[in-house]
Structure formats: structure tokens, C-alpha cells
């Protein structure tokens, strides 16, 4: 089977700065991969490259079977990126925001309810986004990603701002992703927590990748 993500000597320039300076990465169907690395190592950049938001300067990238040099857009319907911000509208409620982004990929209201439940957002469903606290927003961002039922879920520091409950909920999300053979790439500084769940760890150092297997032979 083709890998879900395949990068070869990927170089990505932000301005003229090589934020990614040669990254190789293979992620296979159903894997949960931890993306580690210091501040400024290039994790966010890598995730945005995978989402098709940033073009490569050189190297190869294919995600979900699409060559990103040719098309950076089509695969987005099957993918969700949870970044630092929710991407939601302040004047819409939690549920309305979720519904908008879920309907956009043709999913139903059930997915919305499931995601609300999974992140413990039920009581906040009718609160406007503008009134949410930082951690509540983070939960909503994850819920939006989840409700779109993506084949590939990209999470950028999803733990930041979550309380203990929220982290439990996130762990559950990751576990059920494993069960549903959904692929996850997750950048985080909560290494210990994520290592317990991830199949594999990839560390970025100054824009380059260094891989090491974590759990031997799970998949």
C-alpha cells in the first residue's frame, strides 16, 4: 500500500528562510506519529506543507495519494488541520461553527454531535465562539477536525491550553483514531504523554528530520 504521507528531501522556504531544510517522512495508514522538535524546528511548517498550505521549494511530497507539486487542494477534503487558532467565527455558536465546517465536507449533524460529546463541549454548544476561554477554543478546534472524519488528522500542539479532562479526551480521540485506522500526525511538546500513544516519533532538528521507531512492530 502507498504511504499516506511521503516526503523526500522536502525543502520549504518561508520568505528566504529554509524552515524545512530536507525532510524525509513516511507515514502509513493508521499510524499515529509524534512530531517532536524544539521551538523553531519546523513542526508547524511541516504540518502546513502536508495540508497543502505551503508549497515546497524542492523535494517530493505526496499526501493521501496526491502529489502536492501538482495539486495542493484536492486532498484537503479528506484531511483536517488543527492549528493554534480555531478558524471559527466569533459571532457563531460552537454548534453553528462545527456545522458549517462539517457540512462543507458533506458530513451530517451526527458527526457534529459526536464531536461535541467527545470533547466535552455539549454544555457549550450554544455559546458563541467569541465567549470561549482559551482551552474551550482549543477543544472546539479539535472537535472541528474530528467532525470532518478525516483520513489524515494533523494536530499542531493540541495539548496547549487543555486542562486534565481535555487531555484525557484528546487521548481518547487519538486512541479511537488508532481503532478506526485513521492516520494522525501530531506536533507536540508533551512528549511523555504522546509517546504513550504514538506508534512512532519523528524529531525535527533545525528543519531536518531524524526518525526513530518507538513501539517496535505495532504496525
Amino acid at each position, binding site marked *: 500500500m502507498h504511504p499516506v504521507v511521503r516526503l523526500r528531501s522536502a525543502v520549504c522556504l518561508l*520568505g528566504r528562510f*529554509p524552515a524545512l531544510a530536507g525532510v524525509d517522512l513516511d507515514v502509513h495508514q493508521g499510524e499515529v506519529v509524534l512530531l517532536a522538535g524544539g521551538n523553531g524546528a519546523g513542526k508547524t511548517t511541516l504540518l502546513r506543507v502536508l495540508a497543502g498550505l505551503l508549497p515546497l521549494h524542492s523535494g517530493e511530497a505526496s499526501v493521501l495519494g496526491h502529489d502536492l507539486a501538482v495539486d495542493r487542494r484536492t486532498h484537503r477534503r479528506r484531511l483536517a488541520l488543527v492549528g493554534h487558532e480555531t478558524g471559527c467565527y466569533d459571532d457563531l455558536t460552537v454548534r453553528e461553527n462545527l456545522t458549517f465546517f462539517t457540512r462543507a465536507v458533506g458530513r451530517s449533524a451526527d458527526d457534529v454531535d459526536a464531536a461535541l460529546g467527545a470533547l466535552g463541549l455539549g454544555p457549550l454548544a450554544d455559546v458563541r465562539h467569541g465567549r470561549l476561554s482559551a482551552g474551550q477554543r482549543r477543544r472546539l478546534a479539535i472537535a472541528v477536525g474530528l467532525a470532518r472524519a478525516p483520513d489524515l488528522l494533523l494536530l499542531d500542539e493540541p495539548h496547549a491550553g487543555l486542562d486534565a479532562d481535555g487531555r484525557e479526551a484528546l487521548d481518547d480521540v487519538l486512541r479511537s483514531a488508532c481503532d478506526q485506522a485513521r492516520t494522525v500526525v501530531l506536533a507536540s511538546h508533551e512528549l511523555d504523554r504522546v509517546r504513550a500513544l504514538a506508534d512512532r516519533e519523528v524529531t525535527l532538528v533545525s528543519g531536518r528530520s531524524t526518525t526513530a521507531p518507538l513501539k517496535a512492530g505495532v504496525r
Partner: protein
Amino acid sequence: MTLLKPAFGRALGWVTLAALVVLALFGLWGAPPDAVQGDAQRLMYLHVPAAWIAYLAFGITALASGLWLWPRTRSMVWDRVAGASAELGVLFTALTLVLGALWGRPVWGVWWAWDARLVTTAVLFFLYVGYLALRQVPTSPEARARRCAIAALIAFVDVPIVHFSVTWWRTLHQQATVFDPSLKANIHGVMAFTLWFGALAFTLLYVYLLDRRYRLAALEEGRDDRELDVAIAERVAGAGTPEARRPSGSVEAPAGVSR
């Protein structure tokens, strides 16, 4: 790094200079003074070629933008050509406007008249001033190229519509009052030659400046692969910072990239 071979570019510089000198000689002394306007009319030999070259420059911008957008011909070369040519176009449009105003003062008694051609020229000027403003907005080179290519085409599509609307505005209601079209009717032989020679000289000037401007843009972007290798080496060694190799500070990814 240049459009022309460096030696050729230098030679072109000298040829252009010579052509401009000859143009000046002809314009000032060779051609006879105009029967009606006297010496003021000599501005024509600059004004009209400037206008023509401005059109040419905007045409080249549109063409280069199209070539950038067309996947098979996509190359940063076209982006730089488009930008350089638009700058020259704005320059030559400004020259047309200024020379026209200088000319209008003695001939019409005013700097400016609300004639259709004048107004379209001014709108054209602002269309591309906006385009240049867009080029100055810091983003990554690729993003800028894409945005600007599309903006150039949008502007170009607009030019004929502006032209029609402005012309109709004048003609549907009343006739143009000041612009005297009979001017060019009986144009003297030497005058015609001087005008055509002016067009040639300005074309040379345009090509020469385009080449220079292109070279500057290429240098500013400084993205030849050798330099990139150095940057990558620095980055991998953990030494490079996003600011270290940035002479102009004109290139930056959009806000939000790293949040």
C-alpha cells in the same frame, strides 16, 4: 540573472544613450517648430513615445503574468519581468502625464483637462500604482507572484472597459472641448521621422531598463541555488535565523504562518 547577455546589455546601454542624444538633437534643432504651437510642440517627441512605451510595458506585464500563471511556462523569471515592466510602465505613464501637463500649460492654458484620453491615462496610472503597491506587500515570493499575476490580468482586462466608459462619458453627452485632434493631421516629414525615431529610442531605453531592473530584482530575491545551499547549511547547523541573510526585508511569509 539578467535577461540579456551582460556584454549585450552594456552595449545596449551605450546604443540607447546615443539614440537619446540623437533624438535630442533632432527634437530640439532638426525638426522645424510647429506652425501653431511653436517650440512647445517639441515635447511631442518625448510625450508620444512615452505613452506608447507605457502601453507596451503594461502589455508585457500582462503577457508575463499570463506566462507565470500557465503551469507549463511557470517560472520566477516571468514574475520578475512582470514586476519590472509594470514599474517601467508606471514610470512612462507618469512621464506621459507630466510631459502632457507641461505641454498643456502653454497650449491649452491649463495643466489638466478633463479629456477622455487624459482621464484614462490617469486611471491607468493608478491601476498599476495599485499593482505596484501589491508587489511591495511582504509575502513569500511564490505567493506574491501568484497574487500579482492575477491582479495584473484583472487590471489589464479593465483597461478597455475604462477606456470605453471614459470615452463614452465624453462623447455621449457632448464633444471633447479642448483636445484638438487636427494636430497630427499634417505632420511634417522631419517631424514624423523624429517621432518614429523617438519611439525607437524609447523602446531601446525600455529594454535596457527592463534588463537592469530584472537584474536588480533577481539579486534582491537572491534565490540562486548556491545561496540556498548556504542557507540550508546554516539552518542545519542551527546558526541561521530568518533575518540573517535578508538585505531588503521585502520578503516575508504572510501573517499567520507561524501562529
